[in-house]
């Protein structure tokens, strides 16, 4: 536990050494808020449906890959991975410390969008159920994508390559759970789209939670996939040795 904390503190501080993370957080908050405000003025509804419906793509394609890309790629580029992995710590603890640092950074950025529900509360009487559900789903979704991102970054010493591969992977996971995409895939290989939609598509589970349906299946989906990728990350780092 202590080792996780030690790694966590260094990693979290490291986010503030370079401007990249700041820039992406600001883009994330501004982009989301402005997209939302466009909808808000257009339809005049005191809810956050439009905000949450675009969230899986915004997170998967841009924001999460930008946070996760440095986690291992930077260590590989600098060579510091050699010292980090020869510290008397378990690889799992190092992975968890790094992951939690990125997760907390993500939570901070997500908290930056809380201005929207606050504004809604001042202006009208929004139904808070879906808003809570949406944020809860966003926490789970971000956690899952970050686990994918940290896993991907352990394979490349170039941060940009990590960013692109993570973006493609998370983008795929988000799109395949979008209602129309599986139908198209089914058109090519019958059954495949349906299968992917049900078992790997992220958006469907996210939408369930956002609607306030906190179904055990969706929870298990997010938590088990997150755990799986973190486990794979630790294992591949150890296998690199053989």
């Amino acid at each position, binding site marked *: 536990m*202590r*080792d996780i904390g*030690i*790694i966590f503190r*260094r990693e979290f501080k*490291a986010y503030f*050494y*370079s401007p990249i993370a700041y820039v992406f957080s600001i883009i994330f908050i501004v982009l989301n808020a402005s997209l939302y405000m466009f909808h808000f003025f257009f339809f005049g509804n005191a809810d956050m449906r439009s905000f949450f419906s675009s969230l899986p793509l915004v997170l998967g394609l841009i924001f999460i890959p930008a946070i996760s890309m440095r986690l291992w790629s930077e260590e590989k580029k*600098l*060579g*510091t*991975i*050699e*010292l980090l*992995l*020869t*510290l*008397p*710590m*378990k690889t799992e603890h190092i992975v968890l410390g790094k992951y939690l640092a990125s997760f907390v950074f993500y939570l901070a950025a997500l908290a930056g969008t809380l201005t929207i529900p606050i504004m809604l509360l001042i202006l009208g009487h929004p139904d808070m159920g879906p808003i809570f559900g949406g944020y809860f789903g966003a926490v789970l979704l971000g956690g899952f994508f970050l686990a994918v991102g940290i896993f991907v970054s352990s394979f490349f010493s170039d941060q940009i390559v990590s960013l692109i591969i993570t973006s493609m992977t998370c983008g795929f996971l988000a799109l395949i759970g979008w209602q129309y995409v599986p139908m198209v895939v089914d058109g090519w290989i019958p059954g495949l789209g349906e299968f992917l939609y049900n078992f790997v598509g992220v958006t469907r589970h996210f939408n369930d939670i956002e609607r306030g349906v906190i179904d055990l299946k969706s929870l298990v989906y997010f938590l088990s996939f997150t755990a799986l990728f973190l486990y794979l990350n630790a294992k591949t780092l150890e296998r*690199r*040795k*053989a």
Partner: protein
Amino acid sequence: MIELQNVSKRYGETQALKDVSFSVQKGEIIGFVGPNGAGKSTAMKIITTYTAPSAGRVSVGGFDVVDHPLEVRKQIGYLPERVPLYEDMLVAEYLEFIGEARHLNGQFKSRFDWVVDACGLETVLKRKIGVLSKGYRQRTCLAQALIHDPDVLILDEPTSGLDPLQIIGIRNLIKDLAHSKTIILSTHILSEVATIADRILVINQGRLVGNGSFDELVSSLMDRGSVYISAEAGKTAFDKAVKAIPAVEEIVHDSGLKRGVVGAHIYFDPKANILPALNETVRSAGWNVLALQQERLSLEESFIRLTQSMPEAVIDQPVQEEGRAS
């Protein structure tokens, strides 16, 4: 303290180490010598648990590097060849992180002060690592390796890229540490280890091709011994008397010397020691000796011979082919 048994390492197609075995006693300083790409760094990465061997066993302080990596890591301080450091951290901040990660707790303050003093880092503690000169980077990384007072130090080319004064500084630091620690340091400069290492391991193309003290290694390289002597003597009488000494194979005279003076290289069987006999000859003939010197290979010559001629000549075992599943 450190034990390698039939260690092989392969990266895809390339065989980085081939059946290397050696052991290092507690308190020894070992110089790891070989040309670039010989496998020195690979061996060090295996000892520090960064990579696992493809075959063979390695243990440090009785702990196997594959089965008990954490126990091994606790005992080791490691300075990798690339001198990897977090560029954005301050020197002090970085050493604090390593101190925490090494679980120093209460001892941290005193170890920190010691290491800052020993590595001469007082003036750069509040500087960003990214802006440090090569020498300070090297010392910061060395401080990182020393902060937990490890029993074993693995230093991969600790003086490469430093100026002569800094090299002497690091060399003295290593000498100071030598009494209490087991040290392996690698280099491709033989003169560097000739002075401080108790024993030299020569590695070339992934194989251990030499293992012994500097003098042992160098004398094993000489195909015949050589002594230079200059004396006031007649050439014919000199030749006759010297040839009478057993083991002498050849006498080569210097040309252009004054009349009545000889200067000659005497070559002899390297297993024999001809000096007592030569001394006896000189004395009984009553020559006045002007110079007498045992001739040796230069460091550069030794290095070239060690790393080029030995693989075929000395050790040529078949490469172990079996892999290891893990």
